[in-house]
Each structure stands twice: as C-alpha cells, then as structure tokens.
C-alpha cells in the first residue's frame, strides 16, 4: 500500500504546530497502524529527520496509552477499537490519512501527537478508588456476594481504559463519559458504597477544575469510545452527583 500521510508536527508545548505531508510506500495491509508509523519513523531516522512522537505502550488495546485522531475520528475508523488494534487493511492504497493529536484545552500537546493526559490521573486521585484495610485482616473481594447483574454493570463501566477518546470526540471536550464510568464501576459494588458521596463530588469538582467542558448529549463520546462505554454512565454520574448533593 502506498499512502499520503498528513501528520500534525509540533516541536513542544509552546510552539505553534502544523500539518506536514509524508509519502510512505510498501505498507502491508496486515500491519497495525502504529507499526505503519514505526516504519515511517525508521524512514525519517534513516533520512536524518526527527521521528514523529506518539504515545503507545501495550499495543493490545488495554493500557489506554495510544491516542491519535485518524481521519477525524479518535482511534480511527474502526468502531470499538484502539489505535494500536487498528490495521492498515482498513485503508486502501492511494489513500490520504490525516493524523492529529487529541484536541482539548485540558490535554495540551507535548510534542507532535503526544498530549498530556495527566488531568485524568488527577481526577482519579480525587476519588476513583476504594479504601481497603491492608493491616492483615483484608477481606477477600470474592468473599463478598454481589448480584450478577450488578457485577456485570460494574464490569462494563470498568472496561474504560481512560484513553481520553471521549474528550477528543466531544465538541465541548467533556470528560463526563470517563468520570461517569469511573464513578459507576464503584457505585454498583458494595466495596464502593463507603466513599460513594465523596467520590462523585470530588471527581466532578476535579473535572471542572481541569477545565473540561460540560456534556451536551451529542453522543460523540459513546460513538468513538474504543471500549463501547455507554452514555448510561453519564446518566448514572448525574444521578450519583444529585443524590450526593441533595441527600
């Protein structure tokens, strides 16, 4: 496959970036998208150019490190798939592919396609955890009976890998799908009940402090989520927040 890549290049946080064109040849359809970028980077290194910076880690669709907006869609054209699990067979030889970083005021570009997503870490630190007694009397989580429907719902929300595609897809850069998933995964479980009220209030407060926009229910986050996290999580976030504030 021969492709024309239009890639966002930006030296650092402060410098103004722009799109640069790269032609790449002989790409195998069975390569992953990131492998294709590896090939391009090797080509750039061989030519003495600066390779393109992009985030990646597990390359198995579970760590949430990879990002990229490919042809206008976070994680590319394949539904329910992360960038690292996207394969070049989804494109045709001769295609032009636009590759941009996730865009949000709360996700500043560090270099090229790498953005700073530490805002999500700070939201998690504000309440996305359960406190466990680790003094030697820890109760095995499996010893606590949990109804199957609740466990399933909690698991669906816990599938969120915190990649930030919801923020990248939303026209308001809203993080409510992410925060909703993190609040929901504990709201369904008995272990999450103790800190339930503080959790949602603290996480939403931190989300607002980080400067994310508010949800206008366009549904773009759900449509582009690589883990198919449902809008139901935003409904539950609103419920949890209102209950915590009123009751």
């Amino acid at each position, binding site marked *: 496959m021969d492709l024309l890549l*239009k890639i966002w290049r930006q030296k650092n946080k402060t410098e103004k970036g722009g799109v640069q064109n790269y032609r790449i040849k002989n790409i195998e359809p069975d390569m992953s998208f990131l492998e294709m970028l590896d090939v391009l980077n090797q080509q750039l290194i061989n030519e003495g150019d600066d390779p393109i910076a992009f985030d990646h880690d597990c390359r198995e669709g579970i760590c949430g490190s990879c990002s990229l907006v490919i*042809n206008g869609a976070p994680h590319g054209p394949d539904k329910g798939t992360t960038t690292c699990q996207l394969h070049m067979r989804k494109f045709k030889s001769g295609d032009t592919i636009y590759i941009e970083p996730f865009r949000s005021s709360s996700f500043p570009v560090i270099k090229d396609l790498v953005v700073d997503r530490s805002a999500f870490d700070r939201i998690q630190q504000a309440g996305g955890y359960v406190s466990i007694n680790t003094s030697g009397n820890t109760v095995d989580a499996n010893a606590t009976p949990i109804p199957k429907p609740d466990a399933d719902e909690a698991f669906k929300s816990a599938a969120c890998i915190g990649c930030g595609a919801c923020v990248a897809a939303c026209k308001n850069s809203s993080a409510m799908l992410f925060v909703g998933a993190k609040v929901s995964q504990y709201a369904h479980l008995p272990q999450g009940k103790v800190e339930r009220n503080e959790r949602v209030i603290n996480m939403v407060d931190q989300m607002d402090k980080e400067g994310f926009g508010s949800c206008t229910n366009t549904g773009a986050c759900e449509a582009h989520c690589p883990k198919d996290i449902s809008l139901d999580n935003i409904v539950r976030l*609103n419920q949890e927040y209102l209950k915590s504030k009123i009751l």
Partner: protein
Amino acid sequence: MQSSIVKKVLMALSGIFLMFFLLQHLTINLTSLIPDDGKTFNAISHFMGYNPIVQFILQPILIFGVCFHFIMGFILEYQNRKARNKKYIYHKTNSSWISKNMIITGLVILAFLALHFYDFWIPEMEYKYINYEVSDPTKYFHELKEKFYGATYRTAIYCISFILLGMHLNHGLSSSFQSIGVTKSRDKLLRAVAYIYSFGISLGFIAIAIFHYFTH
C-alpha cells in the same frame, strides 16, 4: 452553581418548564382555529391577560425562566468553547447537526422572541399598564388576524422560526432527561416522545400562522 452538572441540571429544568409553557401556549392558540369568530380564543386570552395570578405571579416566573435559560445557555457555550481551544483540521462526527448547534437554534429563537414581543407582548403591556386603556375582551382574535392576514414576510419568519424551535426542542427534550439523570438521551421511548412533542409544537404553530395568513 459552580458545578458543571448543577448548571446542566438547571438548564434542563428551566427547559422542561418552558416546554410546558409552550404546550399551554399552543393549546390556547389552537382555539383561534375554531370557527366561532374567535369567541373561545378571545375568552381564554382575556382570562390570561387579566387574571392577577397569571399576570403577576406566573408571568414574572415565565420571564425569569426564559432569561435564565438563555443566560445559562450562553455561559455553558462559552465554557464549552474554552474547553476546546483548537479545532481539528479534519473532523468526522456521528452526532446530529441539531445536537451540535443548540446555540444557533437558540439564537434564532431569541431573535424570534424579540419579534414576537414587539408584535404582541409590548403593545399589550402598553395597552394595559402604560395607557391604562379599558379592557376589550373581543380584541385578541382581531389583533391576531391583523398581524398575519396577507403578511407574507412575518408569516415566513414565524414559520422558519417554528421549524428551528422544533429542532431545538427535539434535542432539548431528550437531552434534559439525560441531564437530570432519568434516562439516556438515546432511549427509544424518550426519542419517540421528543419527536412527537417537537413536531407537534412546530407544526401546530406553523398551522396557526398559515391559517391566519390565508383567512380573513
């Protein structure tokens, strides 16, 4: 009030309140289509215009609700635009045009409201509270006819505004239920109710404007 969720909930609640008002407004206006020379329409309009509870309690609440909805809408739009500092060069989205452009349909409704107030509400306030004219329980139907009969531009502006109002209501209704934590905006039943309500309001007002444009 600082929380984004509280702002959204207040936006949704004020929107739901205005939706009830619109339904009531349409029901009253539909009586102008009854072939009784406007007797029913005049009677209801006169009651609404001179009932002290409607005039001095419900009307100020309504005006507050309208102002609150617009101001909160602008605040949220400003914050949301600030949150996305840079646009994509190439952007593809699955979201509907309506859901992404509530501010545009909202601004059209705001402009329409200014015209509507200029046409009906300001003359009515002048008549009652500035000139202290004697109440005339038969004037409302006549005034309505006078405004629309043969008035092509006014009727066209009203009809276009009603279409955009319908679009705004369609997303607004389903969205408000998600914001208050009832059910997600894509819920099938909620979508059906939103379509029936928004089409009903839009087509109802359009039918009234067109009817009075053609009949004398």
